[in-house]
């Protein structure tokens, strides 16, 4: 799914500006940003529910979606929605094909109940199942675990991961629950000032933030940069903070090679929350991750 140089204006206000992104089938990409950053607008453009914009979106894919709150008929049963939104697209809804998913999401036994009797979490789950109808190549989900308890959220997230892994569905997901994003995403995009302000990959080699304090002044920052050791986040007279995937042994070897004495060493795993806070609170004043 390729989105290229997207700009969206509402009157004089520019919501998205020259935004480009790409995500693939089988990949789960998180989208985070402040309220009003343009996440929903971007998702609506990707799903073509907004038609007026500049730039291009590859539109040769089947895209399922749940944006903002689930759109349902309150006087109709859950099963009606699944049958109807398959049927009007020329497909026949086969309950057997979705039984496992519906059971895992605890929707199977309430399918004949009217949606107005559903809790917010159940409506969200039904909205997610609707987004999966008609075999989409991609799905776009805006706050999918909204209104769900911890246990239910986990079930939904596990199902999404399974969709990506087993059915090769590409998923773009936005949420203010950073732990949800962190739990299932391959990478996260930070939306700020109408464009992709940064990107965080969740690699197998997990990145850590190391803080090293020495007994005398040394230009470690230059050394670390030259050695491509990681990204220097902060450099003081006697201390340095580096984001790196290097092992502790490699760190100590570097310190030994410089001939300085290390008096304190802390390693902190970088969480999405810390990255997000740094990004949007501007603690590190950087633009790249």
């Amino acid at each position, binding site marked *: 799914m390729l989105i290229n140089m997207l700009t969206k204006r509402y009157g004089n206000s520019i919501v998205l500006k020259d935004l480009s992104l790409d995500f693939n089938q089988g990949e789960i990409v998180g989208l985070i940003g402040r309220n009003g950053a343009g996440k929903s607008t971007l998702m*609506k453009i990707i*799903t*073509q*529910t*907004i*038609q*007026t914009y500049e730039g291009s979106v590859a*539109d040769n894919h*089947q*895209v399922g*979606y749940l*944006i903002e709150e689930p*759109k*349902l*008929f*309150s006087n109709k049963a859950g099963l009606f929605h699944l049958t*109807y*939104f398959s*049927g*009007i*697209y*020329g497909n026949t809804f086969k309950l057997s094909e979705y039984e496992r998913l519906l059971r895992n999401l605890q929707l199977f036994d309430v399918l004949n109940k009217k949606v107005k009797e559903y809790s917010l979490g159940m409506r969200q789950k039904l909205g997610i199942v*609707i987004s999966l109808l*008609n075999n*989409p190549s991609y799905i776009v989900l805006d706050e999918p675990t909204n209104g769900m308890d911890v246990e239910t959220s986990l079930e939904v997230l596990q199902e999404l991961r399974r969709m990506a892994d087993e059915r090769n569905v590409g998923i773009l997901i936005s949420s203010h629950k950073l732990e949800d994003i962190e739990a299932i995403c391959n990478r996260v995009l930070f939306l700020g000032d109408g464009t992709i302000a940064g990107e965080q990959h969740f690699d197998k080699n997990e990145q850590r933030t190391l803080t090293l304090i020495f007994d005398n002044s040394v230009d470690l920052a230059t050394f670390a940069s030259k050695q491509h050791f990681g990204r220097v986040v902060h450099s003081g007279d006697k201390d340095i903070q580096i984001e790196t995937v290097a092992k502790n042994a490699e760190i100590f070897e570097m310190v030994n090679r410089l001939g300085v004495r290390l008096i304190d060493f802390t390693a902190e795993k970088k969480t999405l929350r810390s990255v997000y806070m740094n990004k949007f609170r501007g603690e590190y004043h950087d633009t790249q991750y």
Partner: protein
Amino acid sequence: MTLSINKYVIYNLKELLKNGYLVVGLLGACVPAIIMTYYILNESTPFNIKHISSFYCMLGMLAAVLLPLFFINRDYSTKTISLINNSVQNRRNYVFANGIIALSVSLLYTMTGIVLLLVTKALGVSGDLKLSFLAGFSVNVFLLVMTYFLFGYLLFLYGVRSGAVYGILTAILLFFPNALFKIQGIIHNEFLFELIENFPGYFYPAKVGSNPLSPLQYSIGCLTLIVLFVVVLKKSEKIEV
């Protein structure tokens, strides 16, 4: 994912049948005409077959316009339209599909009206029931239903609330023509008189069940229908919900 016009139409026509709105609408159309027939046959009133037709259209046309708008109202008020408005093609297909539903409803009301007129004629109601009258009646019902349906659709597209849309349609179908008729009676300006006479908001509800329209009125009616359809289509292609 392309919206199937056939499937959408079939699903929703079945829905109209299942939820009983179609039957209630037809009863609303037929009951006044049946009561009128009873009085003509038993009370020797001076009314004839054209009065039966007019009484059929009185509430019948309102029902025939409101029935296909049920889906537009439902989809826009619940915002489920956003599950359909996911490509230009699907936006167009949705307009076409709902147009076909309105067309189907207008055909149903035409057929029911013709059957009702033939039955009442056979029962002895006076008046000529010529082929030209029946043809005019059929075309009038089709044009009226489609025109007012598209007008109501346009109101929904511009965000007018359902209560207001139904209120406006009821007013312009049932009361507005009467007011214009009274204005015609008191004005002496021929141009203004002709203007009202050839205004679709007047001639459709006033003449739908009583007379075929003039060639000029049919021309104006067709042009109005085309303009409304194009505006609805263009607005639907761009609308954000």
